[in-house]
């Protein structure tokens, strides 16, 4: 008997941030996944099994997340977790999941440790922040010949990934690392930081900030008349709301990410369908993270289907490792293999133009 | 009786499970001074607090000018014309003397009259005028007591409930206070209910009196009658300290128990 699997049901879990500082990421992602699962369940489930998706809120706090993992794994007996948010939170969860072989699929963190040993039960959805940042810097260096790179970051796992990428990869890209500033999530005034980076002569600034802060930084730089600089965000800042700030405040902001922006493609058939379905279900506009959530659920569903009626941890792993398809929702190719547990390797580079993200490059 | 101003009927007040007032009834007639005597913990303070709405009674009625006022919020009671000069001063410690007095006139709006009354208070207690800018919390105990009384006067009440007005005042000032109260009563017709440990002066000023013990009224009558009672004389006036009790340390039994 496989944990979390019965003849009529397969239990999936997620430990997410529904009320903490990353609720803007966690909530739409969970909604997106729910949308997909509801559709699948309504259509009769997979091999006769309904999907039960249990979501726990950790509000971005570690002790709460262990509590949540304990509940999901020991009480709800989940088969797999998906979309779990936060690097340390996931790492703590591995301690419980690894001994039981519970899968961790497409966690909502782009940290490289998401594929640490034992890698058997771990799958990620898209490129890491590290790779995204590197790709973004490469693009800007090539396109504009910029060489002086700086970073602004929150002292969190997320911030550290991006600042490390900036510092470690600058040289290999023919750039020099010049300066850095750190911030707190509740900061709202960036004149000092922007002045500092400006006087240090930064040409590219990688950003690992909260969404609200990121918008303010770009706005402040504009206000102070600092125009000969490129700000580069990652998938964490790759949100419609950032592009849609009135007055063109964020115009010219770059973002490197693992997918192509949803709103920019809202007239294409797959995104249009998703946007309509999502808005009908939740009464809120669909966002990139909703799309990610939907896609992760889709990946799991495909694997469950491929694993066949006899669902075990081994059959599921084999199914995941054989998955290969083009996601027209994300506009990226998804391919897993026994050697590669990272689904999408594409990195997209976009820039804000007229209130929308415009795709300018792809790796 | 048309000149009945305040009437308390069968009042019971509790502190949680503790019954502090056990069915008290009393009457205060317009223009009279009524004193309530009683030992420690008899419930005098509780009685006054219940009348002024600071505490809620559980049973019974308080009728002021024909209106039932029990259970009212205290500020409404004040508006109706009852002012309570509390035990233990209760001044506003971080406000100046002047501001404390100004608050006494909170319910009034006639500026000229207020100014006149304030000058009157300053006239009664010149030290307050001298210290008008001092924070009330730094006044000496007696000075705070003067302020509390002065503040009560500023309200221009129909009836004043005075809880131990002479507490901590010098003998000279005690005499002056009682002279002032007498004047207020006689010239301005202010009715008073007076709780006072200094029974001699209280009975001297009062027209009627009640004696409370353990939450009940045990004796009542005109002040003169009470003053003549043997029990009152020995327990509240201390007449026999030198005589009957003398250097004896045991106490005589109270006959009303």
């Amino acid at each position: 008997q496989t944990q979390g699997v019965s003849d009529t049901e397969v239990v999936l879990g997620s430990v997410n941030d529904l009320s903490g500082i990353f609720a803007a990421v966690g909530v739409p992602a969970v909604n997106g996944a729910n949308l997909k699962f509801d559709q699948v369940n309504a259509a009769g489930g997979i091999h006769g099994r309904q999907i039960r998706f249990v979501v726990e809120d950790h509000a971005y706090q570690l002790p709460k997340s262990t509590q949540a993992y304990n509940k999901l794994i020991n009480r709800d007996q989940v088969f797999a977790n998906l979309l779990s948010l936060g690097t340390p939170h996931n790492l703590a969860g591995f301690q419980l999941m690894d001994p039981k072989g519970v899968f961790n699929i497409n966690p909502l963190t782009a940290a490289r440790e998401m594929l640490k040993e034992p890698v058997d039960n771990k799958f990620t959805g898209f490129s890491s922040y590290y790779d995204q940042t590197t790709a973004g810097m490469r693009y800007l260096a090539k396109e504009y010949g910029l060489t002086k790179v700086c970073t602004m970051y929150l002292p969190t796992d997320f911030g550290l990934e991006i600042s490390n990428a900036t510092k470690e990869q600058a040289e290999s890209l023919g750039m020099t690392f010049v300066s850095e500033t750190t911030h707190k999530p509740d900061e709202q005034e960036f004149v000092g930081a922007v002045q500092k980076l400006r006087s240090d002569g930064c040409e590219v600034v990688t950003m690992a900030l909260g969404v609200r802060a990121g918008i303010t930084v770009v706005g402040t730089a504009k206000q102070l008349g600092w125009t000969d600089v490129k700000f580069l965000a990652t998938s964490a800042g790759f949100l419609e709301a950032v592009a849609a700030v009135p007055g063109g405040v964020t115009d010219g902001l770059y973002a490197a990410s693992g997918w192509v922006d949803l709103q920019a493609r809202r007239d294409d058939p797959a995104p249009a369908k998703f946007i309509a379905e999502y808005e009908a279900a939740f009464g809120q506009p669909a966002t990139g993270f909703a799309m990610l959530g939907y896609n992760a659920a889709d990946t799991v569903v495909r694997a469950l289907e491929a694993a066949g009626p006899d669902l075990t941890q081994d059959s599921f792993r084999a199914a995941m490792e054989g998955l290969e398809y083009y996601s027209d929702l994300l506009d990226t190719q998804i391919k897993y293999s026994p050697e590669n547990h990272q689904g999408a390797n594409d990195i997209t580079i976009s820039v804000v133009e007229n209130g929308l993200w415009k795709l300018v490059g792809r790796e | 009786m048309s000149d009945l101003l305040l009437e308390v009927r069968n009042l019971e007040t509790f502190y949680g499970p503790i019954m502090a007032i056990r069915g008290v009834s009393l009457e205060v007639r317009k223009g009279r001074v009524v004193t309530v005597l009683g030992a420690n913990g008899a419930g005098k303070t509780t009685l006054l607090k219940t009348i002024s709405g600071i505490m809620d009674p559980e049973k019974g009625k308080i009728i002021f000018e024909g209106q039932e006022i029990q259970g009212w919020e205290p500020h409404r009671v004040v508006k109706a014309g009852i002012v309570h000069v509390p035990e233990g001063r209760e001044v506003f410690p971080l406000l100046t003397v002047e501001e404390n007095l100004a608050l006494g006139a909170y319910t009034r709006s006639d500026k000229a009259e207020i100014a006149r009354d304030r000058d009157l208070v300053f006239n009664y207690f010149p030290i307050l005028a001298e210290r008008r800018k001092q924070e009330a919390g730094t006044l000496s105990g007696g000075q705070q007591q003067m302020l509390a009384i002065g503040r009560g006067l500023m309200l221009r009440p129909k009836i004043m409930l005075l809880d131990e007005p002479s507490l901590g005042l010098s003998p000279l000032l005690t005499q002056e206070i009682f002279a002032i109260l007498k004047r207020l009563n006689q010239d301005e017709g202010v009715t008073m209910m007076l709780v006072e440990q200094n029974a001699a002066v209280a009975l001297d000023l009062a027209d009627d009196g009640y004696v409370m013990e353990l939450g009940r009224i045990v004796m009542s009558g005109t002040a003169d009658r009470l003053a003549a009672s043997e029990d009152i004389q020995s327990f509240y006036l201390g007449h026999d300290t030198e005589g009957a009790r003398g250097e004896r340390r045991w106490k005589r039994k109270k006959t009303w128990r």
Partner: protein
Amino acid sequence: MSLLELDSVTLKFGGLTAVNDLSMSVEEGQVFALVGPNGAGKSTVFNLISRFYTPVTGSIRFDGKDVLKMAPHEVPNLGIARTFQNIELFHQATVLQNLLVGRHRHRKTNMIAQMLHLPSVRAEEREHRHAVEEVIDFLDLQPYRNSRIAGLPYGVRKVVELGRALASKPRLLLLDEPASGLSVEETQNMRWWIDDIRRHMGITVLMVEHDMGLVGKVCDRVLALADGAKLAEGTPAEVQSHPKVIEAYLGTNAVSKGGKVA
């Protein structure tokens, strides 16, 4: 040598001279009263002795030791206990606990021993309790032993405060208006208590009191204060008949709870 000596002590609050070049001395075994109009500086003198205030000039000595060199919490260790005019009890605690705090200066065990509740701690606790029960018996506080201060009438609180001071077994007791708010009967009790405190316990008493009846009966010596300076000093009778005291303090028609005074 006197037990307590104040030598030309002066204290100012801003422009106000609350105590003005005051000298006084209290002999061992005396009951000494400080009287004077409201705001004369009597409580301030107490606060100076308790080290809540530091005088601008002058010295305060207790049993030859310089009180001004002590921190406020060290003063009780000299054997000085006090009560407050406006009652400062630990209002959330019971009477018993209040009195036990009075024993604080007699504690012997340290924190670790107390945490482990070693036998020495228990022995000490019994000892404190014994001392406190004596005070309770003396002041007739038995009915209130386990009542919280918050629910006690004013008069009882005054007595509890006296008890708390007594529990510390002081050599000098400072009483700020011990009889204010007490009825005649209770004032009489207070008189006997003060007498016993002096006679049987051998404690010197310095008190502030407006009830001249009480002062006349229990005090050996009276000092009248006005505007922070000495007005008169002597036996109760001498001070009470001093014309300046009558004018500034007593009035011509002084009454005390126990009847007419003069």
